């Protein structure tokens, strides 16, 4: 990009989602960058339009109407700005048309295979399958799977540098035999990124060099205890632009409009989550729940992980959530009785008409109940995937005798978690922030003291890509307009009987002391703005908070306030009934009273 950052005063950013294209306008006002307007329109990557720019133009037209700024002329973006016309910078992310779909290969499935998966997921891809020498499938089954899945590209890893070559070469032979056609466009060679044993490069080239578009990068696992994901991730981004985006309908045109390469939406959200963890020096779990997929991100001990639950989403994949969790788990979050057949038909109708929105309160409650389950299931998958490197020989000393951490253990430690950040239509567009708060707490079940935040209007993807171009603008908008601090959730560890005392609390809010007792089975909400609140918690009946029986210190309030969750950790739903669900809802001001 050849633009002077100082001259950039008006920024247009779009995110072409699988369902909706979102456009935001950022302007430099009173010496700071602020979000000023937002527009959206259905994504048009699919028939009958088959041109992503139609949806982009429609979203921008909505922005023009709301802002009074003329941005388009003859379906082109006016740049640079001149008074109230045009913008200085245009950037975009995309997950439309199925996003980036990859297969990865590794010699040992839970070692190099998982490293390759981490690299692909971190770059914003959906991983369709992992082929590995030890995946239990026969040679021809692997060949058939590759032919059938038709990935956009394949990342092949395997072997430490200087180690055995034969297994990774065998995987290359599997790919050569399958000779897969890429998903989009029959007329070009499928991109293969080789990130394995460097000694095997010539052998790999001999097998795949002619028939595929082979790219060689540094080994993803040069030694057993080292994971080197960046070269593979960067190459995936390059190839995503060159091959996948260039083949998707209308993207060639869109690419000529943007001032920075288009990046996959999940990659952009991951950048933002990493920045929150880095800037505040905290552990963060982030989630972006979309129509087709739910992405979960975490940063614990500075280690970033991303998973994509390709089968859990709020529209295209909504029936997968139903199939996976079962109707009982969805209806348990609804306080009224609902006919099961009617409920399944409603959910299925959302799948086939993904852009519809709830018009009645009952429909909204059902949709948010499904969201809880989609989030819960996605987080389970994330915890299983976000683990320490497997296969690493650990040196133990006498002081480690009681520390039984093993290689391959989950990095997600709920007790160490400082913040949960939610994004995605169902969270960002929930009519009440209390609803987003409850969905996140119910699905992630934070333990101890955890801040909860939500993306205000679902713009983290755009800010993610903006942070690569103009970090100052991205940070200012993120802090002032994007991240809504909902409050802090206090969830003591322990279980007991309904109405048992869990803790005595006291908060100093605006020079007033608010005191009370939290009982087992209830949720209490204490209003407190986003300022530090002097807090005292005295635990009862063997409950603990952060491993202790009392807490004295400062916590943050937020737009909703401090939520005291007395439902027990671990949380056992079988203790509760429809009345409990109704009471939680009333206590947290979740829905308008009928």
């Amino acid at each position, binding site marked *: 990009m050849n633009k002077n950052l100082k001259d950039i005063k008006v920024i247009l950013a779009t995110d072409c989602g699988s369902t909706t294209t979102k456009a935001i306008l950022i302007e430099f006002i009173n010496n700071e960058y602020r979000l000023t307007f937002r*527009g959206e*329109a*259905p994504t048009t990557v*699919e028939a*009958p*339009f*088959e041109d992503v720019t*139609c*949806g982009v133009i*429609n979203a921008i*037209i*909505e922005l023009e*109407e709301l802002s009074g700024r003329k941005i388009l002329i003859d379906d082109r973006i006016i740049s640079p700005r001149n008074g109230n016309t045009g913008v200085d910078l245009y950037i975009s992310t995309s997950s439309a*048309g*199925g996003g980036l779909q990859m297969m990865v290969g590794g010699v040992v499935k839970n070692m190099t295979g998982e490293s390759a998966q981490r690299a692909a997921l971190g770059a914003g891809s959906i991983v369709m399958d992992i082929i590995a020498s030890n995946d239990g499938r026969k*040679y*021809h089954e692997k*060949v*058939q799977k590759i*032919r059938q899945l038709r990935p956009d590209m394949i990342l092949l890893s395997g072997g430490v540098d200087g180690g055995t*070559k*034969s*297994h990774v*070469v*065998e995987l290359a*032979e599997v790919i050569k*035999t399958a*000779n897969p*056609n890429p998903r989009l466009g*029959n007329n070009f060679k499928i991109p293969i990124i080789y990130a394995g044993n460097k000694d095997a490069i010539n*052998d790999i080239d001999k097998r795949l060099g002619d028939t595929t578009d082979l790219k060689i990068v540094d080994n993803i696992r040069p030694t057993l205890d080292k994971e080197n994901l960046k070269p593979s991730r960067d190459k995936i981004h390059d190839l995503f632009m060159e091959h996948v985006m260039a083949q998707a309908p209308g993207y060639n045109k869109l690419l000529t409009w943007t001032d920075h390469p288009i990046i996959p939406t999940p990659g952009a959200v991951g950048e933002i989550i990493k920045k929150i963890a880095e800037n505040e020096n905290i552990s963060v779990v982030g989630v972006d729940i979309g129509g*087709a997929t739910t992405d979960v991100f975490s940063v614990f001990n500075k280690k970033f992980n991303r998973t994509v639950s390709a*089968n859990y989403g709020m529209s*295209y*994949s909504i*029936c*997968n959530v139903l199939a996976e969790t079962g109707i009982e788990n969805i209806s348990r979050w609804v306080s009224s009785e609902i006919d099961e*057949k*009617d409920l*399944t*038909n*409603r*959910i*299925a*109708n959302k*799948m*086939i*008409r993904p*852009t*519809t*929105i*709830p*018009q*009645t*309160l009952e*429909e*909204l409650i059902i949709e948010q109940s499904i969201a809880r389950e989609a989030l819960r299931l996605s987080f389970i998958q994330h915890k299983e995937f976000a683990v320490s490197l497997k296969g690493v020989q650990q040196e133990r000393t006498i002081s480690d005798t009681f520390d039984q951490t093993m290689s391959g253990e989950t990095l997600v430690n709920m007790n160490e978690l400082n913040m949960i950040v939610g994004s995605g239509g169902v969270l960002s*567009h929930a*009519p*009440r922030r209390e609803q987003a708060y409850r969905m996140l707490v119910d699905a992630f079940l934070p333990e101890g003291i955890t801040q909860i935040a939500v993306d205000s209007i679902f713009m983290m993807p755009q800010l993610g890509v903006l942070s690569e171009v103009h970090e100052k603008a991205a940070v200012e908008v993120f802090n002032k307009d994007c991240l809504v601090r909902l409050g802090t959730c206090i969830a003591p560890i322990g279980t007991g009987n309904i109405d048992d005392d869990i803790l005595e609390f006291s908060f100093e809010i605006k020079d007033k002391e608010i005191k009370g007792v939290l009982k087992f089975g209830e949720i209490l909400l204490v209003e407190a703005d986003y300022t530090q609140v002097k807090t005292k918690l005295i635990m009862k009946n063997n409950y603990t908070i952060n491993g202790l029986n009392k807490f004295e210190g400062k916590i943050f309030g937020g737009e909703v306030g401090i939520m005291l969750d007395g439902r027990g950790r671990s949380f056992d739903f079988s203790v509760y009934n429809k009345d409990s669900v109704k009471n939680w809802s009333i206590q947290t001001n979740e829905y308008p009273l009928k």
Partner: protein
Amino acid sequence: MSKSYTPGLKILENASIKKKRILPLAGELHVEKDDLVKSNQIVASAKIPGNVQMINISNELNIDPNQLVDCMLCKVDQEVKKGEVIARSKGLFGFFRSEVKSPMDGILINMSDITGQIIISEKPIPIEVDAYIDGKVQEIYKKEGVLISAYGVLIQGIIGVGGEKKGKLKIIENISDLDKIDSNSDIVAVIKSFLDYELYKKINKLGLKGIICGGIDYESLTKILGYPLGVAITGSEDVTTVVVTEGFGNISMSDRTFQLLEKYKNSYCSINGATQIRAGVMRPEVIINLDFNEKNINDNKDESLILVGSKVRIIRDPFFGLIGNVSALPPELVKMKTETMVRAAEVTLEDGTKKIIPRANLEVILSD
């Protein structure tokens, strides 16, 4: 003014229909540009690579992988027969030789001096693509397929299962109508109302080609498929093809759709249950070939815009399935009972009542 596009379904009597008939991999075309083709006519064919089998010769002969080439008795791309000796070790002074026989008929496609393995592929499997509809070859895609253009009735459903089928349209008013149909007839049954699992089973047992219906329960669909449908990507199921025009639940087919199907009862039609709601929307369809009449063609893409006067179907509760005309498009956001602020439309229903509906919950009915 910003435009609201909706996922409109086409219910057209006079449509210009174009169908790409593409091979899954490069192959051979059997027609030329401007040829007139029949729906059953093969327009392209290809050979899918056969199943493969890997044999570790290095292990079998107890040799190093780099000795493999010297021990092989056949070359890459050479045909081999089941039982044929394909590799032999040098042995000790010519004695104690080991041999490997081919486990199948096929072609040797790879030898690896790194892994010591060879790969034999079965003979390629031929696949053919027919024209699907009567029409004219409008375009040729070299080695890939053709574009067929035709003219006729085009009805898009909302969800379907099962692949391409062809047959005569037959209106089924009562379940007893099925008793008058011979089994395995080339018939596509039209059911105005709701398809339940019992009715499906009866039609399936009768061996009819397909079913077009108004609604279906998710539960019935689960029974038909044998598993719950997780994402709406269908078409390859081995079931009687079903095209659902309205959605899930006890819903009847819209009058317009039913009237059109009734008008062309006994006509030969092509149907396809394949649905793909993501990544290249594909809706299930019913196509009835008619004589070409350019004057009447209705092919206006912009009709999927919601405008005042547009005929729409409400596609979400509490008015799911009702049909009306857009009578106003208020520019300001409207607050729903959910407290959400949305862009809405005022819809005058067929009984004259007016309802405020989120624009996102409307589907334009593309009819002529």
